[in-house]
């Protein structure tokens, strides 16, 4: 009964989404201001019913209601309570519900901030979000209903995929979706601006905080996913260029480009049509990612539900949403394009390079992801595209992009040249070069050609990002949130570049069979296998090995890698043991029992791998700092200016037809 209420709530949410789309889009078009009042109410009601539906599904999982097919397929009475809750997004149907929930959260956030927007514009943006919500609710209800009953019920469930029984999995999908779906707001604002054919650039100003927040969430989500794969999949890799990873990475790259082109559009009124196109593309790539993951056109380790009949449905939705937006773009962008010039070595031109190079990078990933599909469609046979393609081709646009970051940060708007920033930039470059050479020749021996280059670029970005804040502090000036946020995000980028550089060039990896008491040497570290024992968990049994690590005879750490067999699905799961450190990770994973007490082991030394995830996290913190800090500054400024009646101007002009 409760389960049917959840189903019913989802249907009601669909009705409200339709109302939101109808009144939001037609109210302004037919000049009916009174219709607009229905839009926020419909959005709020929609959120309430979607939250209710989610709560019902959680309840079904917690109470082990195996008469619900989705629960029976993805949970088990032996599954710990915590994982019974996170099992909600353990497979396709629940993931779609999470998608919709996150979309309604973003919609709610836009409703809460709509008072800063002209009423017609806000209604149109909410109307577009209503259309998206309608599409996904329809899709869920018609092809992937999480509330479908299983009659007769089974006594016990099929269990959650053991790979997903992990704390990181509890947060990775929701945060990733917050980013993925968050671009829907930028998309909706871009569509609203195009529908109105606005000639001003205020829409860019409104779009900036939403884009940055979604981008920050996406950075966190991707980093979490990479970290999860690193220790849960058991073999120590942190990025596989898997289609599903790429599906989240492409919107992030385009989102990064969008943030930078929005800065130009907002400040200078340039790149307008390009910015609109990026906003449409970022969310389109999110949608495309959903399609690729859910339809089974690409075979991936992530694709837990391959069902071609769903594919056709999603394809139809893509035509409606992406096709609609691109059609709108083809029609409206010509009247909205900007006409103003800038010098060759100005801030604008650096941001243009940033945009072009990031877009090429995204295109490289896109091509590699779709190449197997295209080859298959043309009947050229199966094609496997992996790191040997992605790693070098991605570097081609990304390395120049990274080399320009330090310069771009300090180039002046409009006017040519670097001005007084030239000297400190040259000094920081020289310092970075010396430090990088010392690092790659001294601390980390046997470097690749790219090692000193990567290290120089990473260090230069960090030092250059510090120039502005330090200069302001020395002169006793206040540090605006936007500058602070930008500096923090760029420092994060530098940290990330350093991490990637040294992980890629100085990782030591050995696969070796060891008997108890035998040892293997990896650089300065000695790994000794001490034997192991059988273990018993709540829903698995397995074997736990013990590996002692010493460095020049001094003990460093003792690792306990495990190999587990989960009863219900009979899946074997390798759980790597990792000694994490600020400057290096040491990893041991169990391979196979090769007899006579010996096990094959995978042993790894990975320098600076934490920098990869910490860097992504710092980037996200930079984004959030800029948005929240700026909001505070604006509300303070508005309060200060209120007696002068200037607050009214913050609202922009009223609704234009």
């Amino acid at each position, binding site marked *: 009964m409760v389960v049917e209420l959840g189903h019913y709530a989802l249907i009601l949410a669909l009705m409200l989404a339709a109302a939101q789309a109808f009144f939001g889009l037609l109210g302004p078009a037919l000049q009916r201001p009174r219709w607009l009042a229905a839009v926020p109410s419909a959005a709020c009601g929609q959120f309430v019913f979607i939250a209710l539906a989610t709560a019902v599904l959680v309840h079904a999982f917690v109470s082990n209601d195996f008469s619900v097919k989705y629960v029976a397929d993805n949970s088990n009475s032996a599954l710990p309570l915590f994982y019974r809750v996170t099992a909600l997004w353990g497979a396709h149907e629940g993931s779609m519900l999470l998608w919709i929930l996150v979309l309604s959260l973003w919609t709610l956030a836009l409703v809460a901030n709509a008072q800063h927007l002209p009423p017609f514009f806000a209604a149109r943006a909410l109307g577009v979000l209503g259309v998206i919500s309608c599409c996904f609710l329809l899709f869920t209800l018609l092809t992937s209903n999480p509330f479908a009953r*299983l009659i*007769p019920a*089974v*006594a*016990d469930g*099929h269990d959650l995929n053991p790979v997903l029984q992990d704390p990181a999995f509890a947060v990775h999908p929701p945060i990733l979706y917050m980013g993925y779906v968050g671009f829907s707001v930028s998309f909706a604002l871009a569509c609203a601006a195009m529908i109105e054919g606005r000639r001003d650039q205020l829409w860019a100003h409104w779009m900036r905080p939403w884009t940055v927040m979604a981008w920050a969430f996406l950075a966190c989500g991707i980093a979490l996913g990479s970290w999860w794969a690193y220790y849960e999949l058991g073999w120590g890799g942190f990025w596989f260029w898997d289609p599903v990873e790429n599906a989240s990475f492409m919107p992030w790259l385009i989102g990064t480009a969008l943030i930078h082109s929005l800065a130009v559009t907002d400040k200078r009124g340039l790149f307008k*049509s390009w910015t609109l*196109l990026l906003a*449409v*593309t970022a969310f*389109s790539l999110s949608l*495309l990612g959903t*399609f690729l993951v859910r*339809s*089974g*056109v*690409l*075979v991936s380790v992530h694709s837990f539900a*391959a069902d*071609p009949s769903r*594919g*056709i449905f999603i*394809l139809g939705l*893509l*035509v409606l949403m*992406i*096709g609609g937006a*691109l*059609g709108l*773009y*083809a029609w409206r*962008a*010509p009247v909205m394009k900007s006409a103003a010039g800038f010098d060759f070595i100005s801030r604008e031109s650096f941001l243009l390079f940033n945009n072009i190079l990031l877009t090429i990078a995204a295109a490289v990933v896109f091509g590699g992801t*779709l190449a197997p*599909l*295209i080859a*298959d*469609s043309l009947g050229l046979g199966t094609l496997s595209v992996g790191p040997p393609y992605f790693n070098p081709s991605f570097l081609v646009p990304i390395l120049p992009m990274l080399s320009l970051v330090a310069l771009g940060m300090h180039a002046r708007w409009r006017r040519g040249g670097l001005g007084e920033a030239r000297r400190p930039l040259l000094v920081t470059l020289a310092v970075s070069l010396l430090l990088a050479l010392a690092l790659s020749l001294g601390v980390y021996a046997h470097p690749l050609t790219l090692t000193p280059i990567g290290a120089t670029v990473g260090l230069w970005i960090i030092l250059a990002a510090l120039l502005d804040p330090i200069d302001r502090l020395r002169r006793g000036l206040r540090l605006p949130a936007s500058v602070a946020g930008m500096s923090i995000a760029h420092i994060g980028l530098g940290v990330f570049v350093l991490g990637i550089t040294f992980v890629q060039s100085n990782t030591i990896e050995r696969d070796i069979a060891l008997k108890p008491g035998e040892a293997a040497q990896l650089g300065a570290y000695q790994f000794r296998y001490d034997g192991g024992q059988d273990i018993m968990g709540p829903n698995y049994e397995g074997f736990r090995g013990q590996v002692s690590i010493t460095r020049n005879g001094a003990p460093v750490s003792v690792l306990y890698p495990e190999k587990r067999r989960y*009863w219900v699905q*009979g899946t074997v799961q390798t759980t790597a043991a990792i000694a994490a450190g600020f400057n290096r990770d040491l990893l041991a994973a169990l391979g196979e029992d090769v007899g006579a007490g010996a096990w094959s082991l995978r042993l790894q030394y990975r320098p600076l791998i934490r920098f990869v995830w910490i860097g992504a996290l710092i980037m996200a913190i930079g984004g959030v700092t800029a948005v929240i800090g700026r909001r505070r500054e604006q509300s303070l400024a508005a309060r200060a200016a209120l007696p002068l009646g200037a607050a009214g101007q913050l609202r922009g002009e009223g609704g234009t037809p």
Partner: protein
Amino acid sequence: MNRFLLPLAAFVLLLAVLLVGLKRAPEKSILPSPLIGKAAPHFTLPNLFDTTQPVTTAALQGHWSLVNVWGTWCVECRAEHEVLLQIKQQARVPIVGIDWKDKDEDALSWLAQLGNPYERVGTDRDGRVAIDWGVYGAPETFLISPAGTVVYKHIGAMTLEVWQREFLPRVGASASPGA
């Protein structure tokens, strides 16, 4: 041409690729069992009816046989039970059951109530044999040749249509002359 139309054109091109990819997706999703054409994995299981006589792969030698993986907890197994009884009545191919992750008393009362289509039933309490056989979920039915090799595997409930379309022709092709 209007350059603002280019993104739309690119999207249409992409759609065409996706559509073709989608058409071909079902072919990829049918995973043939890696066991097909290979010797049936060896097992020795306790006999449900007679604890002194284990059920082994020896029971599959010398004649065509079906290996049916089932359990009383499995909904679809109940759905296919009627079909299995009809196959037994045709008396062409004996069925060996593997009672998967089940309780003996449940299995015995199920067979007493619904009828027993099986020549023998081995009980796979901990599911280890099912892992050797690459079982995704019950029910699954394997066709084993007289030489003891796996010829065909059907995932999900057995129906008369599947039996006539997929199983009988394979048995008939080589079995009828000798039978």
